[in-house]
């Protein structure tokens, strides 16, 4: 256990310089709801903690002129809720964010932290992937933008290079006829880690036919999955029973979970299909209601 340097830079450049220049493990502090637990339980022993919440760009959630959103990586769920249109336009993303912990956690937990903690069970990640979100990354080599699904590579590991951190996210404008939803299974009603999570975003045409879809599953593999077969199973359908059964089967086929204290392989696989069916129906209802 070593003493830890703490810095709270005001610009992206300063943050990158600190992270890139660190000798030893450097950790980004956004909401802190994972990092502080890891610090306390000695799971991590960093030399440097960089609080990015003093960087304006990480702290703002804006709706752009084209209806897309730019979301700072350190914005807390409770803050997103206070935006006048965000929760109404992307209810699935919002509800996935809302499900991360308690009210108290909501006041702190950020999308950037939830993604970069790289837990396969992270609640917000399937919804972000389903919604087609991308992440804006800053690092010593400059800026780059990558799909959210490309960031986690293994439990606790990301594709971010040394000195890089996620500054913000891009969420596309909600398409006409679009709807999204996130569901998870936990034993209690709150305060648990997802045993299975499923995000679905889809677009319906005027006739109620699914024209495009993205389906993402959490906690059923080492990383959150984008399940393209699942999307294919429902595109071109009216989400009738056969389509939902095909969706269920495609999701189950994509699962490669583990047995652990939170659930079994059999249970996770089976429930992934159940949640996908239910989430798809909710997303379609939301799409149809516009």
């Amino acid at each position, binding site marked *: 256990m070593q003493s830890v340097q703490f810095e709270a830079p005001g610009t992206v450049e300063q943050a990158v310089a600190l992270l890139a220049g660190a000798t030893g493990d450097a950790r980004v*502090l956004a909401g802190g709801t994972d990092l502080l637990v890891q610090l306390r339980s000695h799971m991590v022993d960093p030399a440097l903690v960089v609080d990015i919440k003093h960087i304006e760009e990480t702290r703002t959630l804006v709706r752009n002129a084209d209806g897309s959103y730019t979301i700072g990586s350190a914005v807390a769920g*409770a803050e997103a809720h206070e935006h006048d249109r965000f929760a109404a336009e992307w209810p699935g993303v919002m509800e996935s964010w809302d499900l991360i912990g308690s*009210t108290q956690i909501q006041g*702190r937990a950020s999308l950037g932290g939830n993604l970069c903690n790289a837990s396969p069970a992270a609640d917000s990640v399937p919804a972000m992937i389903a919604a087609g979100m991308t992440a804006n990354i800053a690092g010593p080599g400059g800026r780059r933008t990558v799909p959210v699904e490309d960031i986690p590579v293994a439990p606790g590991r990301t594709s971010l290079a040394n000195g890089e951190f996620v500054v913000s996210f891009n969420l596309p404008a909600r398409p006409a006829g679009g709807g999204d939803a996130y569901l998870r299974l936990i034993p209690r009603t709150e305060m648990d880690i997802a045993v299975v999570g499923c995000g679905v975003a889809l677009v319906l045409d005027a006739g109620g036919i699914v024209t495009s879809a993205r389906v993402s599953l959490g906690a059923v593999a080492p990383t959150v999955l984008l399940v393209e077969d699942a999307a294919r199973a429902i595109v071109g359908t009216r989400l009738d029973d056969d389509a939902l059964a095909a969706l269920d089967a495609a999701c189950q086929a994509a699962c490669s979970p583990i047995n652990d204290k939170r659930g079994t392989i059999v249970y996770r696989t089976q429930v992934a299909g159940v949640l996908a069916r239910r989430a798809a129906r909710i997303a379609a209802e939301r799409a149809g209601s516009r």
Partner: protein
Amino acid sequence: MAKHHVTTTINGEPVEFLCSTRQTLLDVLRDELNLTGSKEGCASGDCGACSVMLDGRLVCSCLVLGAEAEGKSVETIEGMAEGDRLHPLQQNFLEDAALQCGICTPGFLVAAKALLERNPDPTETEVRYWLAGNLCRCTGYDKIIRAVMRTAAEVRGEAS
């Protein structure tokens, strides 16, 4: 390494303290400032006994670094009563026996106050979900939920 010198406002009073990076806001409140009303039940954000308001937002003080409190305003259970006048939630927790052992009580009160300030007319379900991050092992929550609902009704001016 040198400790951080942090300037904050706690329960309306300007407060300065020194802390190491590893010390959480809860550690600082309890060990440095002797504000032991906020309790540590888990140190992992799972029990809510350390709930405080940080710049007007409900947080677990065990999940905030002391150094992060620089320039911020903190409200704890010790600031809830005004002089010798209890907050209506405190009074109703007493009248409705919404506590048994009392260890979770400060956290529940801080969290419930935050709820009523945002939503003066919550449903039972809204109260239960808002308070889901505050664990109580003694009461089964029944009397806590009732006390919060009754306080909300009183504050709205409805007869309870």
